[in-house]
């Protein structure tokens, strides 16, 4: 499985990748993007099976990335990993077609709980 991790912080991309391993999802190919625009390009060239994305990013936000993705007919499973976990944002994420939202700071258990139905360990 190929997983696209999108976050403008290199530290957070590394934490997400490490947390995936800690949650039992090791051995997957990880592709990284720094913002939504770069991520959109990587979706075309890399065809990831799962996308984990921050919300607040320069160039293109995570929610705009998701909306552009769905508007193009791409249905790749998409999960937000963001520091803002308000009900308003969860509703926006749901409406745009995200699987859900993991709020930072997170634990490996939180990843396992949300990813369990969509990612094979």
């Amino acid at each position, binding site marked *: 499985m190929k997983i696209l991790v999108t976050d*403008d*912080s*290199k*530290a*957070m991309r*590394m*934490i997400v990748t*490490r947390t995936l391993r800690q949650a039992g999802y090791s051995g997957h190919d990880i592709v990284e993007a720094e913002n939504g625009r770069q991520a959109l390009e990587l979706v075309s060239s890399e065809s990831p099976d799962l996308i984990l994305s921050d919300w*607040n*990013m*320069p*160039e*293109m*936000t995570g*929610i*705009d990335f998701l*909306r552009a993705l769905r508007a193009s007919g791409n249905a790749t499973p998409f999960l937000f990993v*963001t*520091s*803002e*976990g*308000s009900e*308003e944002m969860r509703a926006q994420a749901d409406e745009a077609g995200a699987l859900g939202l993991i*709020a*930072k*700071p*997170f*634990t490996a258990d939180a990843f396992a709980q949300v990813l369990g139905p969509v990612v094979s360990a």
Partner: protein
Amino acid sequence: MKVMELADLEEDLESLLLDVLTTVLSEEAVPVATDLPPGPRAVARLAIHDEIEDSYLEVAVRIGLPLAKVAACRMMSVADPSTDDVVDAVGELGNIAGGNVKSLLFNHSRLSLPIAEIDDAPGPQCESTVHVRALVLGQVVELSVTPTSDVDDLYWPPHAAGEPTNLEAHQ
């Protein structure tokens, strides 16, 4: 957000800081009243725009440079973090704290992107600033929240399609 309301949230802000540090650094963090020691420190700043009252809160995380380097090592799994790594790691700690402060305080608001740097300037000393501090690995970390109007140096993420654009004057 009124100053009095902000001061009432000190306990929540302290819990938030402890949760961020404990989870991200995988180390126990405890509340302290001690100031940050003098010397170089890594500082992450960002702002929250309350779109209902059209007011701003600055959220800042300050960490002594030795602990900031340890944080970068832990967060990025590197033995010898570069200055860019330290700034990125502390910026992300600020981003996580800022996002959680936003979720705690506001319904309709926007969060700027964090800016981080290394300096030795003291934090805001104004009366309206709320400071909470935690001790982790024997060193002090400070979270401060300050009502402000000085947001010109901050970068705001682009508006989503269909969103109001009343922040564009500040970009």
